[in-house]
């Protein structure tokens, strides 16, 4: 079964645990890697010869380098700019949502506190993104708020 490579950048230990447990219970073939901040994220992505992730989940508020800053850097780096990025945040402010999408996020997820809700959201996001990834669909207009 082909594994879907997912990368999570989140500085909160509990959120990361919550996220990885939800992913595990989805029954999809997912390989999850996580980093704890934006600097680690970009360092990892720029490591030569790594397998680039199919989908990156990026916490909006991280110390040192935040989600938007990472997003800008990803979208302006030639060999990274095609990557699918989901901004993952506790904020549901219209402004944060629009700002994220305008800066190139494909997906904006409002972090739920309910575990089952998180599973449902992750399932929808991962399977939808996978359709773009494995078909002829251009990701240029791929946008989802959930």
């Amino acid at each position, binding site marked *: 079964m*082909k*594994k879907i*490579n997912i990368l999570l950048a989140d500085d909160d230990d509990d959120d990361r645990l919550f996220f990885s447990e939800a992913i595990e219970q989805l029954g*999809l073939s997912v390989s999850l890697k996580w980093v704890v901040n934006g600097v680690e994220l970009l360092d990892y992505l720029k490591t030569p*010869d790594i*397998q680039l992730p*199919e989908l990156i989940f990026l916490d909006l508020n991280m110390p040192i380098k935040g989600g938007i800053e990472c997003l*800008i850097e990803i*979208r*302006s780096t030639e060999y990274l700019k095609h990557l699918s990025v989901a901004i993952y945040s506790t904020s549901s402010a219209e402004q944060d949502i*629009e700002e994220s*999408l*305008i*800066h*190139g996020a494909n997906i*904006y997820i409002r972090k739920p506190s309910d575990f089952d809700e998180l599973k449902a959201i992750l399932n929808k996001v*991962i*399977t*939808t993104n*996978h*359709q773009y*990834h*494995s*078909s*002829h*669909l*251009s990701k240029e*207009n791929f*946008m*989802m*708020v*959930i």
Partner: protein
Amino acid sequence: MKLVLGYQVDILARKVVEKELMKIGVSYKYHNSSQIELLEELPCAVFEKLKRNLEEFGIHIRETQQEQLIQKIKDTVSEIVHDDNYYSFKISSILSDKLNLSYGYIASTFSDHTLNTLENYIMLQKIERAKVMILSDEYSLTEIAYKLNYSSVGHLSNQFKKITGLTSTSFLRIIRRRNLLYNKINNG
């Protein structure tokens, strides 16, 4: 000077394949001399190139019938969604006609071998086309709904919101602002 060669075909084939896979940079796992599992999905173009390159060495990739069918279903859905002549027909009946298979069989094969249902895939393709038409500024929402065989603008808007989480107006506004920003970054 005469050279007499002896060679082992399976080692030969394996080396050639490994070289080609390394060129692409995809990770893989060898099951036996005729089966390799690619551990990531390859974009169509890359896969086709791999196929051609291997064929030069006389090595053929045998796609399983299921995979061929899935690809055919996806290509046919795309064709139907983009062809204005089909606007008044149900996609399920056109698909069934074109592939000469029952819709039930097509749908179950699709969901068994992909992570999505055929119904969702069709919706996704239609909404993607709707997005392109919205961004082109050449069509009203009514015309778009009509061309994509939605029963009403309301139906299109609902599906758009269901799939993207955005209204078509917000979508348009966000893409425009994003493009402005990208232009600024690229030209600044």
